[in-house]
């Protein structure tokens, strides 16, 4: 069981790197949504006797992150007529290198952390830290609003992975609250993207600096 879980987490970590390396927005969104699906399946593997609550969480995650959010993003992307990250602050190769370094550091760090015995053999903690770092690199290194949304979602995936450690003690309500927040957040950003596009004729967040006093 641990082996298959670790495999999935490894897959998610690989998707992190894919997200960092892709310059086209559709492939970035695809990597992000695939990661969401992978993450959504994990609770079922983690839990032996599949509880209906856990099933619900898994279903909601898969639908939310794998279908709803990506379709919202694709729609925003089409509305804004862009499909490429043209001028990233941090180039694609440096981002990949940073992401790889972050992943290695996360694995090293996880060894140093005092974990419960049943979590010792799992990649949950390094996977979570690596995803958070990837999210930050995307947030810092990309100029287009949609790439930043993807960064934000991957960051959230990292937090979700960490949350899996506590799946028994986290109430369903909290879990669904987080998911709802996220959907609303993406929704709002979709609207903002549209507004930025209309106001500045571009999705470059650098142009937002002219709005300061």
């Amino acid at each position: 069981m641990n082996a298959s879980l670790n495999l999935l987490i490894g897959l998610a970590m690989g998707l992190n790197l894919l997200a960092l390396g892709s310059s086209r927005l559709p492939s970035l969104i695809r990597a992000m949504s695939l990661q969401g699906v992978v993450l959504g399946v994990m609770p079922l593997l983690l839990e032996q006797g599949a509880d209906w609550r856990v099933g619900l969480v898994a279903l909601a995650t898969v639908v939310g992150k794998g279908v709803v959010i990506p379709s919202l993003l694709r729609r925003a992307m089409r509305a804004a007529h862009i499909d490429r990250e043209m001028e990233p602050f941090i180039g694609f190769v440096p981002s990949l290198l940073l992401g790889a370094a972050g992943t290695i550091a996360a694995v090293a760090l996880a060894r140093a952390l005092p974990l419960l015995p049943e979590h010792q053999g799992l990649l949950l903690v390094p996977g979570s830290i690596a995803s958070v770092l990837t999210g930050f690199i995307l947030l810092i290194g990309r100029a287009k609003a949609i790439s930043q949304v993807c960064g934000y979602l991957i960051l959230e995936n990292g937090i979700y992975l960490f949350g899996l450690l506590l799946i028994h003690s986290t109430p369903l309500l909290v879990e669904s609250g987080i998911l709802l927040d996220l959907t609303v957040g993406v929704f709002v950003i979709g609207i903002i993207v549209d507004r930025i596009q209309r106001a500045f004729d571009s999705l470059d967040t650098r142009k937002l600096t002219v709005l300061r006093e």
Partner: protein
Amino acid sequence: MTPGPLLSVAGVVLLLGLVVGPGRPQLWRILTLCGVAIGMGAAVRVLSGGGDWEWRSGFPLGGEAMHLRLDGVSALFLVLVCTVGGGGCVYGGEYWSDHHYPASAPRGRAWWNALLVSLGWVLLSANGLHFLLGWELFTVSAYFLITLDRQRLQVRAAGWLYLVASHTGTVCLFAFFALLAARTGSWDLGPLRGQAGLSSLFWLALLGFGVKAGLFPLHVWLPSAHANAPSHVSAILSGVALKMGVYGIVRFSGWLPVPAASGWVVIGLGSVSALLGIAFSVAQNDFKRMLAYCSVENVGIIFIGVGGAMLAVSHGDAPWGRLAMAGALLHVWNHGAFKSLLFLGAGSVLHAAGTREMSRLGGLWPRMPWTAGLFVLGSVAASGLPPLNGLVSEWLIYLGLFDAVAGRGPAGWAALPAILALATAGALALVGFVKTGALIFLGAPRTRAVARADECGWGMRVPMLALAAVCLAIGLAPVLFWPAVSRAVDAWHPAWATRESPAPLATLGLFQATLGILVATAAAALWYRAKSRGGRRAPTWDCGFRAPTARMQYTAASFAGITAGWFDWILQPMLRWRRPRGLFPTGAFRRESVPETVLERVISPVAAGVLRVSTAVRRLQHGRLQSYILYLVTGLLGLGVLVLLEGAP
């Protein structure tokens, strides 16, 4: 009637004046005069031996129960507030009339009453929180009065400087009252001499109140604010508002224990203020700035007295401390009276001639005899000459300090330099006032506008006459005012309570009265002689020239050149000139101006440095989300590393 009902009626009447004032000037004047008269009644009652008034109520204001208190010290200051408040209100009616200033005059009337009420509130409140509320209200109303004529850039700059400086002081006061409340467990104020742990708080109070009082290095806001405010506002600022700083120091050096060094520091600061204040005053060309610096000097004199008294208390209640304190408190009255008179006179000159530069005035005596006479009377008082009031209070301080020196105690080492500073300051004040009086009123008019100047009306003359009468009364009959001052000193330090007036005071009164009568008789005789004989009239400054021009007269800078030269090290005058060259020289000039040294050479560079650093730091706030997230991540990683390092060993 006890002071309580009187004070509440006065407060209500003044607030009513505040409400109706903007629309109805006549009614406002009547209400304000009634209010200050009633308030004065309450203060006089306490000072004439009616007993202190204290009132506590369960009614909470800002979460604290009301506690008001009127004792000798606060009553003495309340009398001053009421006198100048009433005088300025009458004067302002003509000087800052609705006709000339339709926009700002109504506003000015409302703020005037707000200022009076808040000053009264500060004097009455015996609760730290309420004191601060009143103090802030007083600062803000004074700001709006200073900037009445806010179309002018200089006025706005002066108001801004005043506001910033005042709030620097208020920050210290906030710390002072908050720490006091934290250490005593209550915001209530009262005599707490027994608690030795509170003594270090005095330094905060000295800083906070020192800014308001205009002690030397803290006076930077004072010259520009007093020079640019309307003159009746300058009068109340200089005559009364500065004294609130003095009140704070006197009040809390009486109620709280003070550190051992405080007396030395206060007398030292007083001496420095007296000497350097008057040095700056002598070098000014703007006569309102000159008067403002002269206020720094007089506050210094008051602080010499207060510091002397504090030294006397810390050296075993020496009796000379009583004289020094009485002199200081009487000088609060005297300076309030003669400086208000001088500022009102300056306002009259400004009103008539339209300039504050002495070097553009001249020859105003025949054109404005009332203003000239009253200004000179005020100058005589301010220079501490007999037979007027300035001498009486300075002389009491001298007596106290001489006794200190004669006592051969350690306090003598502070008293001796203070005497020298006081004497030098007095001599320099005379130079300054001779210069100001001579340049404004004597000689020939230097510009055409001055030649056409007219005397002010009775609305401005009456308040000046009233203030001059106060100066004369205290000067000629000091014994009459002794009981009031003595009660205030008793309230400051109850251990010194005694009723007898010092013997030399009666002698001084007699001497002053005789001299006054002699001067008056001589003046009358001269006037009669000139009137009956006619005499020959010639232009002033004729000096045998065929065609003298007004520009041949002394300028302000040349008159004070030698005296100001002694203080070049601190005045740092800025001089630009070109010598006349050749047989038929053209285009020679000489410009000299004295900057506010502390402001321009110390505070401005420091402020510019702070501004540069802030501008550099502000570049971090550029509006790019990406970098903000980077700051966040860096901060988080830094914290993580710190935690790891903490946990490692």
